[in-house]
């Protein structure tokens, strides 16, 4: 060969490794025949079959063959790239072949396992798939992954229990944290609660220590009465502008961002007579009244569950409201913390001491707890504790109208049982038979259909507590647009994967936790926050991120600067440069290809998924053989 052809592209030398996967592929596809066929394809320098390509000797075989046959691109035809590509790519790199020179052909999930009864056709398809892989491999090019430095600082949006927990975890790892809270105080919704379920500590006693820790932490910079005004950049390098009440916006640089903006209770306008009588309130208003010690004298209280939820104003079940109602029902039944303001004489009348000595009370609680556990989780009949005349020890009748009680999990179920022991009545209603709240001569009553007696009944009450669902923050959409992260159908922030990536967003570098992701109680919010903090700390601790070389590339000579791509890019990864020509921010680009498929000039190429590669694959699939 003459010397001067060295500048010419060398002819590809493709190695094809076809896997039997034991009998998973070998049992349904004639692997030997496919291997033989592969060796006849253009630019294939070597083809072989292995019993298990992913096993130690299979991988060694790839490495040795690369050296021996001077291969420059590798195809493994086996299972699925979604699980095995990284393994084979590492093997290639270990033998000096760039990982982007590797092609996966799926012979198992997409062939042998779905065509188990027609070996001949499955074998033909396997040959086609290998031919497609070879066609693609011929056009592969090595790629360099960009390494981007990460600013080791985090931003947490929302200063409720979730945001504070996340901020503290990161701060304790040693990372500076900017905590942005739109309210003038930290604490979030919990601050307005009175008592909490499953603990005798008040909401304030529970949240205060957390607030104190955040206040004291030197790594946490608080931005109160503030909001995120703008966000530019991408994982590792966000320029965030924080706006405050009339103050000059503050510019901070952060590497990762956690969204913890919580949720708000639905205001049940137009439902169950809300606002038509001062005795018709929501469960959050009930908590406030308890805090202010302003509960009126009560004889009979009705809770109405799912007020506005599950098909009324919102379609979902808000999960926590049953447990919240159970909590409040128990507190009324026990007159916990003297919330009812029952006077001494009134209590004496009812034959009860108001102030039980704390120690005794605790002992009693523990006793009944043990009894409950012994009794196990078996539910008594609904409505069972409600024999006529029997009232809770506080003397107040408590009825919880519900569609079904969502006391999920062991602890909530125990609380549910406890409520029934305290003689709280649980009365079921059907979605087509909502309880009716009416005012007669200034007095409240609840009309309902008794499902067992099959008749309409009315119950006079002094107070109706509407258990309304948590709904998304009204301004969630603004933050979602600023951060380029999605909201789900119900307006809550949507995680990357409901099961496998519950606290990540699909966009790298942004994470989510707490009630802004969907109704959650405190314990759930705290575990999500710890999870989100740990996820957000990974890039911070590494100090860099490696961006996959799956990005768009703009050909400056073809781009006319029309701006279409800038508009369609869901990640703001394109911008116009000084010459009005489009340019890609590689670290922000996710390689989706929206821009490439939209550019009217064909000026955009997608690395590793080029038009040429994809068309070659399609053409090979359609060859008549």
């Amino acid at each position: 060969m003459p010397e001067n052809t060295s500048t010419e592209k060398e002819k590809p030398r493709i190695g094809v490794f076809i896997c039997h996967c034991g009998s998973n592929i070998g049992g349904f596809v004639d692997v030997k025949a496919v291997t033989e066929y592969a060796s006849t394809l253009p630019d294939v320098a070597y083809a072989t079959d292995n019993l298990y390509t992913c096993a130690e000797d299979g991988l060694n075989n790839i490495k040795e063959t690369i050296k021996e046959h001077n291969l420059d691109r590798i195809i493994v035809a086996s299972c699925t790239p979604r699980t095995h590509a990284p393994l084979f790519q590492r093997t290639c790199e270990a033998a000096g072949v760039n990982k982007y020179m590797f092609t996966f052909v799926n012979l198992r999930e997409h062939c042998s396992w779905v065509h188990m009864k027609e070996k001949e056709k499955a074998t033909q398809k396997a040959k086609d798939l290998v031919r497609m892989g070879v066609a693609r491999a011929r056009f592969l090019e090595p790629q360099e992954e960009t390494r981007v430095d990460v600013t080791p600082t985090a931003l947490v949006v929302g200063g409720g229990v979730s945001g504070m927990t996340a901020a503290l975890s990161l701060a304790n790892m040693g990372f500076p944290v900017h905590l942005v809270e739109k309210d003038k105080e930290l604490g979030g919704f919990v601050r307005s609660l009175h008592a909490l379920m499953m603990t005798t500590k008040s909401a304030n006693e529970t949240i205060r220590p957390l607030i104190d820790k955040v206040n004291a932490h030197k790594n946490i910079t608080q931005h109160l009465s503030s909001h995120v005004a703008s966000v530019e950049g991408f994982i590792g390098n966000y320029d965030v502008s924080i706006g405050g009440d009339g103050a000059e916006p503050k510019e901070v640089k952060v590497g990762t961002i956690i969204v913890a903006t919580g949720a708000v209770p639905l205001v049940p306008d137009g439902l169950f007579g809300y606002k038509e009588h001062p005795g018709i309130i929501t469960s959050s208003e009930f908590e406030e009244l308890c805090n202010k010690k302003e509960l009126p004298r009560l004889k009979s209280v009705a809770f109405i569950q799912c007020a506005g939820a599950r098909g009324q104003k919102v379609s979902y079940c808000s999960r926590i409201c049953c447990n919240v109602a159970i909590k409040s029902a128990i507190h009324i039944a026990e007159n916990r913390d003297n919330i009812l303001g029952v006077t001494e004489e009134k209590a004496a009348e009812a034959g009860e001491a108001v102030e039980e000595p704390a120690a005794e009370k605790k002992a009693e609680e523990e006793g009944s707890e043990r009894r409950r556990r012994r009794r196990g989780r078996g539910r008594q009949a609904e409505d069972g504790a409600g024999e006529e005349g029997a009232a809770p020890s506080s003397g107040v009748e408590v009825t919880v109208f519900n569609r079904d009680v969502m006391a999920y999990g062991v602890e909530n179920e125990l609380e549910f049982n406890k409520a029934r022991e305290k003689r709280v009545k649980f009365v079921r209603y059907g979605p087509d038979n909502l309880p009716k709240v009416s005012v007669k001569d200034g007095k409240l009553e609840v009309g309902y259909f008794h499902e067992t007696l099959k008749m309409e009944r009315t119950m006079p009450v002094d107070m109706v507590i509407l258990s309304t669902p948590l709904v998304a923050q009204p301004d969630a959409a603004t933050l979602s647009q600023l951060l380029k992260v999605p909201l789900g159908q119900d307006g809550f922030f949507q995680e990357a994967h409901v099961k496998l990536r519950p606290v990540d967003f699909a966009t790298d570098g942004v994470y989510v936790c707490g009630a802004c992701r969907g109704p959650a109680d405190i314990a759930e919010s705290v575990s999500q926050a710890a999870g989100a903090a740990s996820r957000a700390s990974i890039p911070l601790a590494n100090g860099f991120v490696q961006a996959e070389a799956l990005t768009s590339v703009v050909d400056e000579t073809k781009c006319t600067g029309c701006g279409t791509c800038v508009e369609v890019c869901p990640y703001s990864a394109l911008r116009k440069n000084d010459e009005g020509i489009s340019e890609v921010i590689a670290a922000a680009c996710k390689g989706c290809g929206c821009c490439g498929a939209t550019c009217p000039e064909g000026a955009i190429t997608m690395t590793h998924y080029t038009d040429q590669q994809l068309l070659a694959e399609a053409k090979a699939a359609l060859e008549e053989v």
Partner: protein
Amino acid sequence: MSSATPNAQSQEKAEGDDFVPKIIVFCCNWCSYAGADLAGVSRLQMPPHFRVIRVMCSARVDPEFVLRAIQKGADGVLVAGCHPADCHYIGGNYRTRRRIALLRMLLQQFGYDPDRLRLEWISAGEGEKFQKTMVDFTKTIEEIGASPMRGGD
């Protein structure tokens, strides 16, 4: 989707029963490719006439790919992406939907049965939907018959 009544295109139908459809399936990496994998893991059996090409997002499927595939003799092209609400790429698939609707019109204008092109949302958890789609689409294509472009290159 498929029309039961024979139309102009189906006159092109290949003779006899030896019509082996060639179907190209563009699957987005995050949902539909994973859905196809799940169909495999669940051993759901389906006709062996489709060939999957993996792309990152269904919005990557340039109209040119579809037209070129048809021109090269594909009897059917299926584009499978994530359900609109859970697109990995924030709504990339809304764009896909509009584009496919336009392309179907274009195919019709050029005398092809628009049902040769189909768009389906298949999530990572919908192995069964992948199987059903393949069974159904293959049937549709068998009814429409071989593409007039088959054999010519």
